């Protein structure tokens, strides 16, 4: 009996030990960015900063406050995220509800129309050309409309409405003469706060982190969201420092070294602060998504 207990304890010890190791591996890169952001760039670059900050300095952050592209990018991202998410919610939840109703005319055909796009798309180039044709190039609209509807999320809504809103509710409301609009706004929506939270979280993070559409559709540096600014600052500088003027390149490199860590934190912080509080919605969403619609 005692040996059995020993074995169990050893299991727990090993289990938790390995999980903590995973946690350290997960967190270290983030931790490193934090300590590097408050250490002097020279010490960071020479490899002295590994576990703790060295020569504590907040120059990087001070510089960030004066580095305009980053600020502009931040404001743009906030704008694209807020506006984009609101439109996502309206478009996705209304069509999701309609598709969840058995009495929607041509329901099977419409559902097929939506689902088919999960399996086949026209491709990047035609999409690009359509955005161009619609006059959305280098335009705020390009950050919102092409991604206004994510069909996968739409199917999550359909599943949610099917499983969480009792059918009887609709029948009794109908008996009382409540039309679709009223029923949707007065009864379904108030019962679907969890869904709204899930959708806002998923879409919000998508917008905050999205890089490529902005990179492709926006030409004006003033309109870049934070992710594109970051890429220019960190990756472009590292991979091709072949500026015509070596002095300018040097200066750019110095600036980048000083602010890149702070910039990473600055851009990731909102999401990293918000998600632990909304984790249960996130998990719930993933579970709904796993059940096929």
């Amino acid at each position: 009996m005692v040996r059995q207990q020993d074995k169990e304890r050893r299991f727990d010890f090993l289990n938790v030990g390995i999980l903590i190791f995973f946690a350290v591996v997960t967190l270290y890169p983030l931790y490193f960015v934090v300590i590097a952001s408050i250490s002097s760039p020279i010490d960071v670059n020479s490899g002295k900063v590994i576990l703790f900050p060295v020569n504590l300095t907040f120059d990087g952050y001070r510089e960030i406050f004066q580095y305009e592209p980053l600020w502009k990018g931040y404001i743009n991202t906030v704008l694209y995220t807020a506006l984009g998410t609101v439109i996502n919610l309206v478009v996705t939840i209304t069509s999701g509800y309609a598709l969840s109703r058995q009495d929607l005319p041509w329901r099977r055909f419409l559902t097929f129309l939506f689902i088919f796009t999960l399996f086949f798309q026209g491709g990047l180039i035609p999409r690009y050309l359509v955005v161009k044709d619609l006059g959305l190039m280098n335009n705020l609209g390009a950050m919102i409309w092409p991604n206004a509807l994510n069909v996968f999320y739409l199917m999550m809504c359909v599943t949610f409405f099917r499983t969480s809103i009792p059918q009887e509710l609709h029948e009794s409301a109908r008996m009382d003469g409540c039309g679709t609009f009223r029923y949707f706004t007065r009864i379904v929506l108030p019962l679907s706060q969890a869904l709204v939270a899930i959708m806002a979280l998923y879409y919000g993070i998508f917008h905050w982190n999205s890089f490529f559409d902005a990179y492709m559709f926006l030409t004006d540096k003033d309109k870049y969201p934070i992710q594109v600014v970051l890429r220019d600052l960190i990756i472009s500088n590292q991979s091709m420092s072949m500026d015509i003027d070596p002095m300018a390149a040097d200066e750019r490199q110095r600036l980048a070294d000083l602010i890149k860590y702070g910039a990473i934190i600055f851009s990731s912080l909102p999401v990293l602060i918000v998600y632990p509080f909304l984790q249960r919605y996130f998990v719930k969403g993933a579970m709904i998504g796993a059940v096929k619609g």
Partner: protein
Amino acid sequence: MTVDRRTPRKNRFDADKFQLLLLIFPGLLMLVLFQYWPMWGAQIAFRDFVPSKGFWDSTWVGLKHFEQFFNSYYFEITIRNTVLLSLYQLVAGFPLPIIMALMLNYVMRSGAKKTLQTIFFAPNFISVTVVASMMFIMLSPSSGVVNHLIKSVGGQPVFFLAEPDWFYHIFTLSTIWQYTGVNTIIFMGVLAGVDPGLHESAMLDGAGKMRRMFSIDLPALMPVAIVLLILSFGRIMSIGFERAFLLQTPLNLSASEVIPTYLYKAGILGTGALPRYSFASAIGLFQGVINLGLVMVVNTVSKRISGQSLY
């Protein structure tokens, strides 16, 4: 309300249906504009597209662009990289969330479990741009932590992102780091649904945690795991485009050029000349058709083996 009640039943139903159609309209409009219009436009893969003529009026050239792609130097490279990267990711990344979920399931203190989960989820919420940036920073030949470690044990620094040989590893490692945590969610969900009675009776029979993990929990995960595994073969020709694009440098191209990055360069940047819209569309269509075929095959297989399918 009294007015409503007096309306004939049939009319009210029609109003109901009309309102439902109104509700679906915005979504349908977006679908038509940004999915079906591009699908219609994909026909330029068979034409010599001229912007001023539009999708329909450009000259029909049949399979010219497809042949050009099949005969091009990049055909083999991009397909090889795309498929190998996906396979590598599958082999290396697939078992990890299962293992992690099994282990998390035996953390009894719910506070500790939740904290660990929060930690494991964190990388998922960071943008691919930031993850790629961190790779560049940490793997830098002169200033990166990894190379400082190599130097401190007497090794030669490696310029990881300039070496094609390292690209697959970097790409896969960063994907695994980012998504293993969130991929546990579905497995944790299955484990939460395992009948506690099974564990109780196993305990009465003297089965320890290790034994129960392998004899109760792992078998419980198998059906879902098998379906997910089969389905992931359907995505073998699609790849995390942003990640490949961001981790790409002129020096590691031979390993990092995948179908979508090549397509982007040919069709939008225009390699050296004007953007080759039609040629790039042909590449995209080729990939899209293969993806569709793969999903259909994989779905049939899954249905046969496990009775589960996507549609």
